[in-house]
């Protein structure tokens, strides 16, 4: 590992530490930005260590944590405390219905592509991210670990749906 990569690793790790500290010390409205800084720093550190696939996953997973932890300017209690004449929930319900229709369309599209599509038969080395080796590990050798993490993610999303939408 040469000096430049060591410097990149140290800088990105410093960014990640700064993001975590900012999430603790900064005002609550800055927490989403601090989590994005943590995500970017972690992804950079992993990429400097040659773990490109893990860097991409970290950027997506930790970046997804930022809007989850963002402080909403209006709480749900504030929405329910509004007067009856103000249609505060209606646009969100419409967006959820549109999202459900879009998810159904995507499922139909994927099904059509899987059943009727024709694919190019050629070799694929996995590219510079090493996705072929990671796929062999995640879906072959260590498939049980990947299934466990996917199950945990599913339970988390299910709990979010239950507590978020059931009492809206």
């Amino acid at each position, binding site marked *: 590992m040469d000096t430049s990569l060591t410097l990149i690793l140290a800088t990105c790790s410093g960014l990640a530490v700064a993001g*975590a500290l900012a*999430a603790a010390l900064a005002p609550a409205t800055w927490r989403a930005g601090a989590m994005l800084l943590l995500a970017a720093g972690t992804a950079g550190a992993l990429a400097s*260590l040659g773990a490109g696939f*893990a860097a991409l996953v970290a950027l997506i997973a930790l970046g997804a944590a930022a809007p989850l932890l963002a402080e909403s300017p209006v709480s749900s209690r504030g929405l329910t405390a509004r007067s009856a004449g103000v249609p505060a929930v209606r646009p969100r319900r419409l967006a959820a219905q549109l999202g459900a229709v879009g998810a159904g369309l995507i499922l139909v599209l994927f099904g059509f592509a899987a059943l009727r599509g024709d694919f190019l038969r050629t070799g694929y080395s996995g590219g510079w991210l090493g996705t072929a080796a990671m796929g062999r590990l995640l879906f072959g050798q260590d498939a049980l670990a990947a299934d466990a993490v996917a199950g945990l993610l599913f339970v988390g999303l299910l709990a979010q749906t239950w507590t978020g939408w059931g009492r809206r």
Partner: protein
Amino acid sequence: MNQPLAVALVAGAAVVAAGVFLACWSDAPRARLASLPALGAGAAIAFAGVSRFAASRQDPSSGQEMAALLVVASLAALLLGLAFNRGEQQA
């Protein structure tokens, strides 16, 4: 221990320590839950570093695999924690 491995482990440990500080400092539940991604990120950096500079190179991708699984697991734990927190607030 060679120097690059030490740098990677120190970097991961620093992020983990920042996550622990984040969990202990604030009183707000959301701020405490924000420590979960930081803890996972630090452990992922350490795993990737050990995999990169391990003495035996028999399975060099397993550390990267563990790093990817750790960050996804931390996101799942964050989702669960936020759901429990919201359930307690609504109860």
